[in-house]
């Protein structure tokens, strides 16, 4: 919809009112779907609001719900720690592996097209489906993982991976998440790599620059925009990890694999505690915005 001209003062130009009228359903829908839930959630987070207990009413509780999020007694602080720890470990591993694969696929190797298509497959599987598939594979009695480890005489052939010990459970979650996310990282970085002019490498070669030097001085700086995108996407989705945990461990063993998104779901849907759930959501939104802003400040794309 194009406006015929600028409006002067309070007087509407012909057709302008109609323009607003035509746009208003979309604007109202957007407001209803975004602004209203955000404000409602903020309101909830400073009130008591448990739908399973209507008699409790909705008294103002100040920051009580927020204190719960950072209290060790409620077990929610542990979820904060798990989320931060998991993000800090999984994202660098995923980006490093993805970069390695992207560099490999950027070379003229035989069967490159097929490799590129195949590598995307894990990413194309919905994560709940892949979590359930891996859960079956990791079953110590009927699963394939222990069987193959046994055939190859490798350690771990008789391990109960899930919910039997904390390290193996996290290892399983990490492997599945990496298996699923690395293709995404690799493809995005590959696209970035292909945007780098070949002449730069040729010139560097003529000047006798080592492979490592040309990676550090040419590839990395020019890959910055792609890296920023990848890091933002991966960090945010690692920070918001839910589906793998839900399908694979249910937060177990004990509460050792609970994450913020998991406890948020639990507060909303198990306890129907919209106050606490709202507070957790607000904390997550703020953390996610801070992460994005942090990346933006540290890795400024060359074109910005």
């Amino acid at each position, binding site marked *: 919809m194009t406006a015929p001209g600028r409006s002067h003062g309070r*007087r*509407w*130009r*012909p*057709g*302008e*009112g*109609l323009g*607003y*009228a*035509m746009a*208003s*359903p979309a604007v*109202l*829908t957007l407001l*209803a779907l975004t602004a209203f839930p955000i404000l409602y959630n903020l309101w909830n987070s400073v009130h008591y609001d448990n*739908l*399973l*207990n*209507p*008699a409790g009413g909705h008294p103002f509780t100040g920051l009580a719900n927020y204190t719960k999020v950072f209290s060790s*007694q*409620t*077990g929610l602080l542990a979820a904060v720690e798990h989320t931060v720890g998991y993000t800090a470990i999984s994202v660098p591993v995923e980006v490093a592996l993805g970069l390695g694969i992207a560099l490999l696929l950027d070379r003229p190797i035989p069967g490159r097209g097929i490799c590129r298509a195949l590598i995307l497959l894990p990413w194309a599987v919905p994560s709940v489906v892949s979590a359930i598939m891996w*859960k079956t594979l990791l*079953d*110590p*009695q009927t699963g394939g993982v222990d069987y193959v480890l046994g055939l190859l005489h490798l350690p771990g052939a008789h391990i*109960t991976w*899930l*919910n*039997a*010990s*904390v390290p193996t*459970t996290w290892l399983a979650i990490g492997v599945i998440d990496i298996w699923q996310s690395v293709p995404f990282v690799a493809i995005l970085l590959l696209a970035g790599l292909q945007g780098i002019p070949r002449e730069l490498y040729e010139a560097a070669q003529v000047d006798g620059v080592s492979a490592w030097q040309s990676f550090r001085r040419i590839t990395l700086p020019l890959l910055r925009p792609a890296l920023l995108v990848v890091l933002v996407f991966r960090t945010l989705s690692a920070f918001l990890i839910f589906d793998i945990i839900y399908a694979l*461990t*249910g*937060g*177990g*063993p*004990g*509460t*050792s694999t609970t994450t913020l998104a998991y406890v948020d779901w*639990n507060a909303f*849907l*198990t*306890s*129907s505690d919209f106050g606490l759930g709202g507070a957790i959501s607000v904390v997550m939104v703020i953390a996610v915005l801070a992460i994005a802003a942090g990346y933006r400040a540290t890795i400024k794309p060359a074109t910005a």
Partner: protein
Amino acid sequence: MSERVAWDIEAAGSPAGGAGPPPSGRAGQRARTRGSAALALALCAALAPAACGGGGSGPQQVPLGARQTIVFAVQGGISASLGSEGRATGQEIAAFEKAHRGITVQVLPLSEDVNTSYQQVTQRFLAGSSTPDLVDSDSSWPAAFARAQWITPLTHFGLDPAAFLPGAVAATTYQGQLYAAYWYYNVEGLYYRTGLVHSPPTTPQALVADAQQALRKDPSLREGLAFEGNKYEGLVTVFIDFLGAFGGKLDPANLDTPANLKALQFLHDVVYADHIAPQAVTSWTEQNVQDAFVSGQAAFATNWPYLLGLAEAKGSSVAGQTGFIPFPSQTGKGVATLASDVLTVNARSTHLAADAALVKWLLSPAQQTARAIESGDPPSVRAAYTRALFKSAPYFQVDEKVFAAAVPRLVSPNYHQISADIQAMLSSVLANSQTPAQALKATAQQVAQLAKP
């Protein structure tokens, strides 16, 4: 309002496509009016669902004789699931529809996983939906649903409390009112192989000794004791059996007791000290336990009565050598946790008369007996335990003895949160990541806050 909206649509719509002369100032004014009309229209559209959902004072009821469709939410749906419960439900509904011309029962399938189906139901109630009319609920749900006023008391349904087996009424009564009807009677008991264990154990220690001996005697056995160790409600019902075995109790106000600690230690020890259960039980649900027992690789197994029918069926490798008893207890009186499916009715249902008819139908002795024979679900009403039932399925006589030991679960509107905390505690003990004493102490503090009604 609808008339006005229709008028607004016409008024706002007619000139929009017109390719007339450029609008003058007056036309602009008109456009502005049209703009606000369209705005009002959009607002109406946005607010209409809220206005509809508001509801007045008590829903208008559809009389029994009228043509109507009621929605019945069934865990696992009516496809074959555990045993053949789904098929039995389908047959009962078909018979009901035949006997009640005009009433159609639409089945809303819920997940087989009790944690998931709880959320499916809660979400519909939270949304204020008048359907499902009837909900096949876990017996731990009614207290929470009743406090939230989502379900209606069954006081006017004409049910006779004395008709039910012991414990069934107490387990579904909240603040003095009956909120649910036991559909069938389910207890978590102990299965054992009569060929391997000559006399059933009478204490938990004897159970461990018997299991160890059986493992030594029969190298084809893989588990001395198979149980549901996954982090879910099923583990809680097993734990309530263990609690009873040491004279303990699931009391959120007073959880950290010496008897409860013994039970938690027992759970730990069967895997890590006595080695009668594999670590793999940490992901086991009923299905895994069933597979282990029916395939003949377990000496003992905790499970529900439905397994008895499967174990005694032709082709089972343990047919003719299955015993079913309450879980042995140091106190001398064995225990079997009562945790079954109950029928609850949506407080917003507009088909209460038809709902009552279906509830009564499902609880009638004839249907209860038919269901028991078809699916192995033990009837919840005494009158259904007939000679005919025993003739076609003699093991129900065994069940009756176990039922005498039934212990209802805690009736609390906060049961779900209490159970979630207990599940986390049990899971961390089973993973050996916390000692039983530490885990019990920490969890006792958490659930104490949920003890208030």
